[in-house]
């Protein structure tokens, strides 16, 4: 797995400590803690996982195990414009797979990765509750419906600068 080396600043470590403390530094709260920490940092690099492990007094291996088990958690920073492609049943049967392929081809990245300039990242999710608009793509908070592979270039064009 590709990794990004991060050096945590003191205020960032303090923030992690504060979050852990709000869960009484209990190992059993690991998932909740990681949820909050990812909410703050945007992703969970190794150094952040090590800090969480040491605060909750659980092995780093276990933290990493949880981070890699749940697809919600990510060790890579999301792009400035995170692209989420719905691959739930309704979207899937209406061609989400082809749309996803087109995004991957245009941006030259895989699912879970971020472009070199940090602008875009691709992830898949299951159902945003807009099945009538299938296939659905979200870029940041904006939702695009009935997306066809030919529309991908235009969608990306909206985020040129």
């Amino acid at each position, binding site marked *: 797995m590709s990794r990004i080396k991060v050096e945590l600043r003191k205020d960032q470590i303090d923030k992690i400590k504060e979050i852990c403390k709000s869960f009484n530094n209990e190992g059993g709260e690991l998932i909740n803690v990681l949820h909050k920490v990812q909410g703050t940092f945007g992703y969970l690099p190794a150094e952040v996982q090590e800090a969480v492990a040491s605060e909750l007094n659980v092995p780093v*291996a276990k*933290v990493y195990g949880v981070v890699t088990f749940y697809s919600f958690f990510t060790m890579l920073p999301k792009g400035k414009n995170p692209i989420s492609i719905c691959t739930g049943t309704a979207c899937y049967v209406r061609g989400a797979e082809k749309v996803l392929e087109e995004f991957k081809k245009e941006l030259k990245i895989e699912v879970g990765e971020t472009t070199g300039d940090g602008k875009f990242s691709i992830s898949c999710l299951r159902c945003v509750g807009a099945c009538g608009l299938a296939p659905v793509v979200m870029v940041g908070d904006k939702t695009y419906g009935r997306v066809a592979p030919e529309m991908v270039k235009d969608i990306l064009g909206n985020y040129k600068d």
Partner: protein
Amino acid sequence: MENIKLTIDNKIVEVPRGTTIYKAAKKLDIDIPVLCYMDLADLNIEHKPGGCRICVVEVEGRKTLAPSCSTEVSEGMVVKTHSIRVLNARKIVMELILSDHPKDCLVCAKSGNCDLQNLAIKLGIRNIPNQDIAAMSTYRTDFSPSIIRELDKCIMCRRCETMCNEFQTVGALSAVNRGFMSVVAPAFEMDLEDSPCTYCGQCVAVCPTGALTEVDHTNQLIQDLANPAKTVIVQTAPAVRAALGEEFGMEPGTLVTGKMVTALRQLGFKYVFDTDFAADLTIMEEGTELLDRLSRFLKGDKNVKLPILTSCCPGWVNFFEQQFTDLLDVPSTARSPQQMFGAIAKTYFADLIKVKREDLVVVSIMPCLAKKYECQRDEFKVDGNPDVDYSISTRELAHLIKRANMDLNSMPDEDFDKPLGESTGAAVIFGATGGVIEAAVRTAHELYTGKELEKVDFKQLRGMEGIRHAEIDFGGFPLKIGIAHGLGNARKLLDDVRAGKSQFHAIEIMACPGGCIGGGGQPLHHGNMSIIQKRMEAIYKEDLGKPIRQSHKNPYIVKLYEEFLGKPMSEKSHHLLHTHYVDKSKKIIFMK
């Protein structure tokens, strides 16, 4: 507790509420096949993730099959353990497990001793469907100084994870990723060498497949034995002689000391020596250090570090070098017997037989995998040449003997060579939990009181309980002793030391269950702890049969001090027989 009555395979059985179907069946001598399940009752570990689904049974009135290892019984339950539906399900489960498992059984290190292989035989698997559509597992292989992780062969039973986390509290391993990608690995899937792994080898000891095995040094050994320019000598640890026979069909607890010596001699070792000799030496050094710290403490020296902790176990040394780095000056500085042996062999003995250090190959036979790493430590090398060249496990020795067409059963008994093969009963018991400290007491008591002991047995120090303590009367002074085996138990005693609450003067720690007799390099016990108990009995039996049972009375030890070392903790002893510990905690946080 309330009892529950149920029927299994038309037989009625009564068990306490909360019992699993698997255990209730066991009471009826019905052996349901299991794979991920592991019951180490004496260690209070019952691993029942219910993950592999091999142990499924049919329960009347229940739609789906139930995993018997993790399903509790209920009143009036009717269970069938071998209906057609059950047998079919087990077969399909097994076929699915095998579908992405490598098929290199012919050359796999675990072949013949593999739970997965044995189960495939038992379940009559003759072909594996779905192979063409199943993606084969392709995880990289990780080589460390002691342990090889070949994770293509991991079936996610997670037994290793339980040993590493619950029993040892080392925390090096966890299940990571999901689905077909899931394996058991260190954090960030780093190499074992960069993780907090102590190489205790308990993961290897419970792995049901070839996913976790020891680094094999037997081929290197054969090459060295065949090289006329080399003088190859061997030392054997006390726990080996109490377990090696099991690999040749002997009853657990059969002592094979003399047969083992003969086999080693026939394999071509020039001298067959005993690590026990070095264990006697360890007692001289460690016992003297204990008395030194104790007398300074009694004189009111505030800087003296008590309790003193034993330092024979390399898994334990790795553990505190990583997780208790604030206590590095607490353990004894005495090297382990393996390393003391190497240091003496490559100086004193090399001079004696007039062989150059680099032409002398010192091999050790150990019940341990951490010893393989210990040999390679820089502290134990002179100009890059290690004091002990390499260590092979009890299992590797058994393979080697079989490979040479020898049968241990028909071997005559022979004696170790002199001078480094002579040892006392105190040295033999190093192989069992409580043994090192009992050996130390046998010597330290006499040195402290100046009086000869009437009885050298200190049975209050023996046993299988994870944490034990005893008080020994040292001529009016009550010496308080703590003993732990298993690193999780050691952690409890260590936490007290760290908090300044420890009531002990001396603590003995061994990383493995039962001590070295339950080491990661021993014949596999497959979770049967009574085997370890029998090995322990064998160790004490050998002690009882020894004419000399106190280390300081070993005539060759006395001679070694007279001719070479001077006295315990002399400058020469410090140089050759003591060591220092290194803070390795950064390793845990370090990221590649």
